[in-house]
């Protein structure tokens, strides 16, 4: 059942992005930045976690979950370390995603001969 919801919710978030492309005529960078901010605000209202419980990867794979993870790190660290946690905690949870993207992209650039 979670597979169905992952498909539906993930697809719906992508449709939201497509509408921002086509209707609002936003560039990809504007669209992604907006979606990340939306994810951050939704997690700030404590609503992203229920969505993940409900839709699994449908909520964790779209870029909105990046905003969610940034806020989540900040709030967890705020809880355990006090005010400084807002700064020190932001990248705690997202480390895997950013590190993986940097490392794999760099290795690809080393190995792959650019075409054309």
């Amino acid at each position, binding site marked *: 059942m*979670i*597979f169905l919801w*992952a*498909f539906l*919710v*993930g*697809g719906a*978030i*992508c*449709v*939201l992005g*497509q*509408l921002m*492309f086509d209707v609002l005529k936003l560039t*990809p*960078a504007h*669209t*992604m*930045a907006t*979606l*990340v*901010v939306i994810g*951050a*605000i939704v997690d*700030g209202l404590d609503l992203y976690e229920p969505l*993940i419980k409900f839709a*699994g*990867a*449908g909520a*964790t*794979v*779209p*870029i*909105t*979950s*990046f*905003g969610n993870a*940034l*806020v989540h*790190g*900040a*709030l*967890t660290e*705020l*809880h355990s370390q006090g005010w400084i946690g*807002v*700064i020190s*905690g*932001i*990248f705690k*949870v997202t480390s*895997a*995603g950013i590190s*993986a*993207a*940097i490392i*794999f*992209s760099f290795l690809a*650039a080393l*190995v792959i001969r650019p075409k054309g």
Partner: protein
Amino acid sequence: MATAKNGAGRFDKMAMSPKEYQVYAKEKEPPRSILGNCLKAFLVGGSICLVGQAVTELFMHLMNMTPEQASNPTVAVMILLSVILTSLGVYDKLAQFAGAGSAVPVTGFANSMCSAALEHRSEGLVLGVGGNMFKLAGAVIVYGTVAAFFVGIAHLILGTGGQ
């Protein structure tokens, strides 16, 4: 003499004011169906999330992880897949078809970094790859970080203690 006049006449026909030209160009533009684009984005985006869910389930069942623990390795695997597909030139073909369906998932984030890295490889490893990798992804990271900061401050002021 006569041919020159004919030629001029031909160009006279082509002469349009910029406004007329825009109307003309709009007529010739292939129709962009918003509904069709949304359907493609939905199917491809949903499918990518489906793959993500399958990877999550694999981590949960094979390595006895909780869903929270599985989400980080899942993202890493999705990014690895995206980098491989980008390197093979497959992801960009998919992106032309799927629009936001392939851009919005985290695989699109990795694709933007990897394709920037590959594109600027010829400018050198430091200035080219290092300097350009975050060209598109930078906006996502900057806005995400600033938004997370303000949400954190809001929680601090409202005294929720981060729940």
